[in-house]
């Protein structure tokens, strides 16, 4: 099904390492590869330190990559200069997590939404106003809010402004970096619904980064699970949630406490802390906490291999197959 759709973004062997003074190297993103097809939403999940936000930042050019490629339209977006990147700013955009710091507190909503057009010198004042009006129409921002400052709006409305801003230049691909994590639960639904609506209306492709598995399940077609800079599992949403293969995915899903009273769940409790990705030992990153770990797991890093139809796992348990 997905194979027929055009590939919009190809992430190949992406690496991002940070040298830490006196401690070594932090392997934030360590050789990950996956494709994103046009119109699909790929969810990227994991806990703190897994590197998911770093992936988003590198794709957007906010951070230079240490290695690997991010290919959009046959062009490698990684490590481009600002001028080289400029045309791709129109295609690839971002929605940030924190509605309190993602809008300039000294600018009105109208100024914030006009900025993209000012930067790219699109149209005169009236044309810019028209475009801002369009953005507000499709995201449901009332014109009365144009003159307000961010602190006068609540978190949900601010996030809507952030989404409208991302749509200004008609992008085809949007990285959503924890877009609902800072919002109250009852407001999250509004934003999720808006993102889904816009996806349909404007044929958008999303990389949806989040630690909240329920939200990811709701919005994504496929899900990639990250652990300490590596992708440990990648599959269609239903496959990941109904039949997870990687032991970490199982533990992660088991840890989501849900209110469904009909299921009396036995939880898989992982021992110890989420380790830091500084100077990791050889072998599978999850081995120290894995209840199925074998000798080979501590020596060789497993590759991401297909273990079912469109279902990829990075685990020695599946390598023999």
């Amino acid at each position, binding site marked *: 099904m997905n194979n027929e759709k055009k590939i919009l973004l190809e992430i190949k062997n992406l690496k991002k390492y940070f040298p830490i003074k006196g401690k070594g190297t932090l392997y934030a993103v360590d050789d990950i590869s996956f494709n994103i097809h046009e119109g699909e939403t790929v969810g990227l999940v994991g806990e703190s330190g897994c590197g998911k936000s770093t992936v988003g930042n590198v794709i957007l050019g906010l951070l230079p990559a240490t290695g690997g490629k991010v290919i959009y339209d046959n062009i490698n977006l990684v490590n481009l200069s600002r001028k080289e990147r400029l045309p791709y700013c129109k295609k690839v955009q971002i929605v940030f997590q924190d509605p309190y710091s993602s809008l300039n507190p000294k600018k009105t909503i109208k100024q914030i939404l006009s900025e993209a057009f000012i930067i790219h010198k699109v149209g005169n004042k009236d044309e810019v106003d028209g475009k801002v009006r369009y953005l507000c129409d499709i995201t449901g921002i009332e014109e009365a809010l144009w003159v307000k400052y961010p602190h006068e709006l609540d978190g949900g409305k601010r996030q809507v402004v952030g989404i409208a801003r991302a749509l200004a230049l008609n992008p085809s691909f949007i990285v959503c970096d924890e877009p609902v994590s800072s919002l*109250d639960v009852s407001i999250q639904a509004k934003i999720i619904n808006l993102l889904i609506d816009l996806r349909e209306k404007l044929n958008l492709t999303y990389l949806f980064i989040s630690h909240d598995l329920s939200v990811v399940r709701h919005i994504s077609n496929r899900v990639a699970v990250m652990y300490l800079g590596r992708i440990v599992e990648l599959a269609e949403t239903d496959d990941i949630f109904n039949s997870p293969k990687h032991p970490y995915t199982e533990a992660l899903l088991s840890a989501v406490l849900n209110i469904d009273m009909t299921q009396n769940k036995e939880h898989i409790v992982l021992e110890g802390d989420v380790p830091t990705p500084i100077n990791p030992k050889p072998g599978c990153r999850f081995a120290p906490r894995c209840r199925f770990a074998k000798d080979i797991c501590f020596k060789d890093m497993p590759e991401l291999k297909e273990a079912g139809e469109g279902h990829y796992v990075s685990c020695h348990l599946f390598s023999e197959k």
Partner: protein
Amino acid sequence: MDKPLKNVLEIKNLSVEYHTDFGVTHAIDKINLKIKRGQAMGLVGESGSGKTSTALSILRLLPRPAGIKTNGEIYFNEQLLDSINEKKMQKLRGNRMSMIFQNPLTSLNPVFTVGEQISVVFQNHYKMGKRESLVRAGEMLEVVGIPRNRILDYPHQFSGGMRQRVGIAMGLACNPELLIADEPTTALDVTIQLQIIELIKELQKKYETSLLMITHNLGIISELCSVVSVMYAGTIVEYGTVREVFMNPQHPYTIGLLNSLPKIVGERNKLTAIAGSAANANNLPEGCKFYPRCPHCMEQCKKDFPPFIHLSQSHSAACYLYEDKSGGKINE
């Protein structure tokens, strides 16, 4: 012999306001709450619902001079807390009732070792000497799953999850009758959250501590608690057993809340968001606080706060939509 199941905590008609330069904020408006001995109650609410203010009121830790309790009584083990002086209150805090906080980074003092911080609790309340209290501190660490030799380490040497365990160790050190937990796992990763929740569950059962679990995460309440109260804009809108409230919610806010949550299993239906914006605590409406957002709003909702209607022995909702089914006797 069975201990008589008296109420460890009873809150009657509690109202709290904050007076600041910007005006008066009505944080809590006449709430009632009862927790029995050994019972775990969940307090659900979003930001601004007043749940943290409730916790602080119980411990009489409202920020001064802004926070004022303007109405109501709080009873701990049937003793009226308002009538006791601060010195007696200090004897209760950390000893008979204690609290664990949301942020494990800031709730521990960075310049003292973890052992010192836990041992202070023993020194204060059990009048133990320094050496003995440190030994007990080490034992408490073991209880929460940390090797006892770590009493010599400082908070920054622990991860977030472990710091929270230390917070739990401090909270349970003197075996309090009531433990209040204010969003203790919100800042933690989900697999670490599970560890902490399992720990709280185990210890609560073992020591028969009553628990007031304050969170916006319904899954946690489902896992830990037997009863739940739902707060909105400083008022309790529904309460009952967890099964009743989550499986058969009656108040439009509770229903709206449950319908707006994406599910981890089952059908992926379109989420129905609650209309309107979150209530502004500086400018609350008369009558039912939820009426501006309620799909079933009627004229009387705008005038008076609806009375609690009993839908069953244990389940009640404050809403004009329903008629009393339990025979009219107010029985919490």
